[in-house]
């Protein structure tokens, strides 16, 4: 039997679009000083969150965010039948150690900064496919753990360039339910790995822009939606540089999104916060979605949102080996129905 829910080349449409029943967004100090501070559930005022290592802090942040989303929906932990989550650390340890405390089955994911969309898409497929009734989809990142793993020790005197990005210390979690009311995930487009030869790991936006544009173009084609279908199309973390590149690519491909296109990495921080090109990390798109964006959907200011989270799939090893940066972008459509 043909895959009845497949659309076009890379997309799926849900027969009974799963509901985003509840959600939570938790952030660190810098994000808490940004323009959306009042839309986040909790703001931690130091990077250690009372833990001895930053890795423990990141894991705690993810765990508490998932637990908060669960309690906001008036669920018990055991009501959540599956946890889908990911982060940037080697062997996604922040996720595994967080899941250890929550005690539900875990599907750990790695999509770099595209993980939030990846977990939402997969979670929606599990629910709409009749496999589970209720799942949680989440992602997190922490500035210091990313810095010490991918770049330099945090006290090293390096000079950031104007095209570099700041890994967000943030986590976002969503509970997807087969039943209930709220915004729904109606469809998703899963991205291919795209590599156009960029190798500057301090400017991942330029590496990821082609993947984002490719996924968005494929999404429009597969679902036969016009470029003005969504109230807002938002990419995960292309940053100012990546966003400018993407805007040129949109024109080239003839798919300039209307009326609004923006990027979580650009939105998350204020210009005065010294983050150069903008935010990055799994937590960037996760907290923007689970904070300001879903809030606007509930208030009816946004009715159709396309979240296109983008990931740069390199490692420090491949960087040292002189490899380029392959990238991926996954899109999920969230709509008020």
């Amino acid at each position, binding site marked *: 039997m043909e895959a009845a829910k497949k659309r076009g080349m890379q997309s799926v449409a849900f027969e009974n679009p799963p509901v985003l029943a509840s959600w939570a967004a938790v952030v660190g100090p810098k994000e808490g000083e940004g323009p959306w501070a009042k839309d986040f559930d909790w703001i931690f005022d130091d990077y250690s969150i009372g833990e001895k290592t*930053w890795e423990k802090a990141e894991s705690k942040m993810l765990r508490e965010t998932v637990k908060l989303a669960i309690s906001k929906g008036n669920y018990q932990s055991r009501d959540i039948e599956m946890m889908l989550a990911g982060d940037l650390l080697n062997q996604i340890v922040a996720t595994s150690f967080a899941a250890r405390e929550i005690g539900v089955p875990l599907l750990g994911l790695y999509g770099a900064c595209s993980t939030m969309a990846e977990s939402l898409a997969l979670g929606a497929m599990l629910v709409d496919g009749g496999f589970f009734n209720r799942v949680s989809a989440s992602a997190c990142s922490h500035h210091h753990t990313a810095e010490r793993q991918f770049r330099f*020790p*945090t*006290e090293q005197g390096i000079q950031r360039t104007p095209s570099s990005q700041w890994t967000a210390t943030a986590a976002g979690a969503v509970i997807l339910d087969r039943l209930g009311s709220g915004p729904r995930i109606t469809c998703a487009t899963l991205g291919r790995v795209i590599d156009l030869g960029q*190798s500057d790991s301090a400017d991942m936006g330029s590496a990821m822009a082609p993947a984002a544009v490719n996924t968005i173009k494929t999404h429009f084609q597969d679902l036969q939606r016009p470029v003005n279908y969504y109230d807002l199309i938002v990419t995960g973390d292309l940053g100012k540089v990546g966003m400018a590149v993407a805007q040129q690519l949109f024109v080239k491909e003839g798919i300039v999104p209307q009326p609004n296109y923006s990027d979580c990495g650009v939105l998350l921080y204020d210009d005065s916060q010294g983050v150069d090109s903008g935010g990055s990390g799994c937590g960037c798109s996760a907290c923007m979605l689970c904070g300001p964006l879903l809030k606007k959907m509930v208030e009816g200011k946004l009715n159709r949102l396309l979240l296109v989270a983008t990931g740069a799939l390199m490692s420090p090893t491949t960087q040292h080996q002189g490899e380029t940066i392959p990238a991926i972008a996954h899109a999920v459509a969230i709509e008020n129905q």
Partner: protein
Amino acid sequence: MVPLYMAFLVGGALCLIGQLIMDLTKPGITPGHILIGYITGGAILSGLGLYQPLVQIGGAGATIPLSGFGHLLTQGTLKAVEQKGILGVFSGGVEAAAGGIVAAVVFGYVMAVIFNPKG
């Protein structure tokens, strides 16, 4: 003794060159590469007899940048070669730089014990 303004000018100039390399070359050229370039460059210029004049006019402006460390290694090696021949090739550089290396290791350890990274 070298006047302070000469130390400022020579030291500043050496750092300026490093900054230009950082800003104008591909992102693949990291600060680590630049430091290796400095220590190697200092060592080679020293071997050619070109670094000592810079030390004479710039004083600390030439010895404090990492190229000065390369100069130290080369001069130590050359002196030891004169005195001991081939044995000096291996021992001379480290002997001259011993104070600095041990200081780096010991202070590194002590600071790591006392302090925690703040990010």
